[in-house]
């Protein structure tokens, strides 16, 4: 049996009181010994920050294990569920506190990402790759087929304080690569 998909629709402007929840952007508590901040901003086609976007990440743990634990909403501090949700602020920025995903089956490690916003009619999938393992990035079967400028839109930047920074551009020269899995 093959069923036709239910189509998506924009998240609209008024999700702020419905979808973000207490601790939704903290995949680990900030005092976790390996906690890292993942921050950035979402920009529209004229470079204006998008203040009404919602970003979700889904990731492996530090050892490359895919979490199966429930409890993303209750946020028991002892369980890593691998899911986070952050609404952008007035300056378009989002922020997560998490751990860096480990490599799964020797592939280049990344955060799986899905983006929603007012003005975006359906979900957009993308990825945020970790910057440090250049060799893995170079040989990744998905990244290696992209032109260098496009590839760069999928790789986070390491800041001097150790945090990860990753901006998302919806249009323009730096337009982020969005992914179709179908």
């Amino acid at each position, binding site marked *: 049996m093959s069923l036709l*998909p239910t189509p*998506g629709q924009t998240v609209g402007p008024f999700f702020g009181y419905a979808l973000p929840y207490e601790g939704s952007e903290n995949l680990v508590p900030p005092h976790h010994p390996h906690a890292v901040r993942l921050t950035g901003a979402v920009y529209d086609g004229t470079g204006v920050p998008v203040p009404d976007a919602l970003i979700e990440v889904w990731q492996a743990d530090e050892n490359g294990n895919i979490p199966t634990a429930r409890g993303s909403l209750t946020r028991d501090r002892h369980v890593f569920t691998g899911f986070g949700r952050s609404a952008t602020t007035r300056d378009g920025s989002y922020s997560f506190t998490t751990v860096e995903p480990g490599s799964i089956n020797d592939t280049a490690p990344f955060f799986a990402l899905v983006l929603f916003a007012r003005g975006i009619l359906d979900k957009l999938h993308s990825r945020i790759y970790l910057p440090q393992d250049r060799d893995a990035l170079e040989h990744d079967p998905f990244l290696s087929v992209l032109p260098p400028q496009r590839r760069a839109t999928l790789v986070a930047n390491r800041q001097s304080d150790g945090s990860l920074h990753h901006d998302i551009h919806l249009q323009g020269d730096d337009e*982020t690569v969005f992914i179709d899995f179908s």
Partner: protein
Amino acid sequence: MMNASTKDDMTVSDQQQISSEISSRQEQYEMDRAGGAQVHNRTTLNYPPYRSSLLRYPTKDLHHADPESIELLSPAFGHNDVAEIESDLTLQHTGEPVGERIVVSGRVLDGDGRPVRNQLVEVWQANAAGRYIHKRDQHPAPIDPNFTGTGRTITDDNGDYRFVTIKPGAYPWKNHTNAWRPAHIHFSLFGNAFTQRIITQMYFPGDPLFPLDPIYNSIIDHDARDRLVANYDHDLTSPEWALGYRWDIVLTGPQQTWFEAEGDDE
């Protein structure tokens, strides 16, 4: 194609202009279909009648990728994540909300017709007067002190969900002059895989605003658009209490299939 500068110069359109943009896209699609083009089962990202999309839709083609193993699985939610009472939006305050009490229920399935079990469904909506609690909603309609308009539930072993709520009102917005959204409930769902993640809107049957609304019509195929409209279901209606609407949801997208081998599937 409209670019940023023409958009800035553009005065606010009226309904006639928006309706004509909607129909011309519709006619083009039907001509393409008659010429053998494929059915568009998905929402169009580049849909200028929805003005907020002009600077926000990706201009480059989405890049096809084979999902990695993390994307073939989904974040897991369980009954401990959500309290039973969260699925009843009429019980969140001391008094009863104003409006037409309704039950909205249905089944969440994957593309192969298997139930999406124990996964999170989140909803939010305007009140009966068409007003959201959200602080940025400036529509001069009354706030209902007994209605917040948010709910959550976890699908059961059949993939079924059920909410009790109030039928939301239509409300005005600023896409164009005299723009009104058809009444809808926002739905957010997780499937069996991250590739199946979806946020969408459920509409009510027979809404006269359908042909006028650019968000609804951004799904260019009539049958695909129809899949967002709930059916009135008298079997779901409770005597002396609430009208019932049934809305089934299909989440397609590649997923890992190992759970079948574990005897977890009928």
